[in-house]
């Protein structure tokens, strides 16, 4: 069994070497694929905070992915049409600046996470799954009916938004931004797991009654995890929309929620790099199997069934065995 630490290093190596190789060989499409993988990984790392640490089976994380996407879409749309976002009580204009868009995506996701979390955490187990799925669907239908921002057709943004000092239109530049954010969030996540909050949350997942008897509120811990989780997935949504220069209700769809969860499971729930492995494998399958057959989702379904029925702990679990204690 390989130490998880080495496997993580190898995965990080893949995320560094392949894009550099593609840059040298002048293969921008490969860089775009890797960018897609990094963004999916970020979205799934977000979900993993709720799912892996908090034990919250959220089947509505597309909500955050979509909110992030529309944060980008709406701000950039107003900037490119030179229309104000809001005139009252203060004048707010759109923006093409990524950092601003990201901050907006994070704040909006946090607000949504708070509201959905407060309602959904009144319940648990299978209710929680159904409710998060339902709220995701609510945002989906809302975005379809919101004609001011394209309704069903979505919003196109003509030029990718900008980041000071970089030319985001160059694939490797945009990739660098995405992978840096992914690494930063992974670093935060690795600290989070070992922090007092992480320990309390970990216990709240396993034995909420115990957490109550030491005077802590397990629901509040889970709510905090749900919000954090949502902000990370929201940030990924903003990046994804910018990658495609397009945002549509599809980002809110239940399939998106399902896929984000699939990334986490293929890689390994609760493992730091689980979502990263899952996203990488998903993008690779999508690329290769998608090239071989129009119906590649059948194979994805079979793979997923196999992992659920026979392979505990996802790919990382199969390669590295059971998770080690955090020391």
């Amino acid at each position, binding site marked *: 069994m390989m130490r998880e630490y080495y496997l993580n290093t190898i995965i990080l190596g893949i995320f560094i070497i392949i894009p550099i190789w593609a840059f040298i060989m002048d293969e921008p499409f490969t860089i775009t694929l890797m960018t897609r993988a990094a963004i999916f990984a970020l979205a799934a790392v977000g979900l993993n905070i709720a799912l892996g640490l908090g034990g919250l089976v959220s089947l509505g994380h597309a909500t955050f992915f979509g909110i992030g996407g529309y944060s980008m879409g709406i701000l950039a749309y107003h900037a490119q049409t030179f229309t104000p976002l809001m005139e009252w009580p203060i004048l707010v204009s759109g923006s093409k600046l990524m950092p601003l868009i990201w901050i907006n995506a994070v704040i909006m996701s946090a607000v949504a996470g708070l509201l959905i979390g407060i309602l959904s955490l009144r319940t648990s187990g299978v209710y929680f799954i159904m409710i998060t799925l339902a709220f995701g669907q609510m945002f989906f239908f809302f975005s379809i009916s919101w004609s001011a921002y394209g309704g069903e057709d979505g919003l196109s943004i003509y030029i990718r938004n900008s980041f000071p000092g970089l030319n985001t239109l160059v694939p490797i530049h945009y990739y660098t931004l995405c992978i840096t954010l992914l690494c930063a969030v992974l670093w935060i996540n690795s600290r989070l797991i070992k922090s*007092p*909050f992480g*320990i309390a949350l970990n216990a709240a997942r396993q034995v909420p009654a115990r957490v109550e008897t030491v005077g802590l509120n397990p629901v509040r811990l889970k709510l905090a995890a749900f919000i954090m989780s949502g902000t990370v997935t929201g940030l990924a949504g903003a990046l994804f929309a910018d990658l495609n220069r397009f945002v549509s209700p599809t980002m809110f769809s239940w399939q998106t929620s399902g896929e984000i969860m699939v990334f986490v499971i293929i890689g390994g729930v609760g493992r730091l790099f689980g979502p990263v492995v899952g996203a990488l494998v998903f993008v690779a399958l999508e690329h290769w199997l998608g090239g071989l057959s129009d119906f590649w989702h059948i194979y994805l379904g079979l793979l997923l069934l196999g992992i659920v029925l026979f392979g505990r702990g996802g790919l990382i679990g199969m390669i590295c065995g059971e998770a080690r204690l955090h020391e």
Partner: protein
Amino acid sequence: MNNIVLSTKGLTKHFGALSASKNITLDLRVGEIHAIIGPNGAGKSTFISQVCGSIKPDNGTVHFLGRDVTQETVRDRAQAGLARSFQISALAMEDSVLQNALLGALGASRNPWRFLSPALGNKMLVEQAKHALDRVGLSDHANKRASELSHGQRRQLEVGIALTLSPKAFVMDEPMAGLGFEGSMKMTSFLNRLRQEAPILLVEHDMEAVFALADRISVLVYGEVIATGTVEEIRADPYVRDAYLGEEL
């Protein structure tokens, strides 16, 4: 009376037609161990749950440190200094023994909202946790997973977590269960000293331990306290002998 730490008055709880607690009135005083004994199904765990707040009584009150806490949550009571150990171990099985103890220390600090600094780097928390583990004799197992502990060691960890809270009163649900002879002896002498720190409301099946430890005993049968008294009084009570102790003594 000033020396009463914890008391219940007329505590009553029905589950449908079954009355699990009938008008239970008893108290726990400074420096004492008050044992609750009774046959299986007598409503001991239901009683404990009402004392700790995880079940709300239909009637009656719970006072803790002179305050009516009947409507307060488990958390409120824990923060006020009521520490509970569970009958069926409620431990984070995937985590290390030390992490389980740290959870208690974190609860005592009331501040789990620290996100980036490693908990094991926090000297105060770790000291508190290690000290508690040391006292229940688990220092050597601090880095094991809780799931790797024997049944008895899990009981010890339960008590250890309660210790990290530096509580004003302990409520212990069968801390001796599964400990074996030597373990029981150790736990008995440990609890014997512990009562100086905070009084203990003790539910226990191990009669030898109960008779060795308890200052007072209450006998619970079918949700009702049929007798309260010193060890001698309870041993001598013919009604108790008839209803519960039977031929054992």
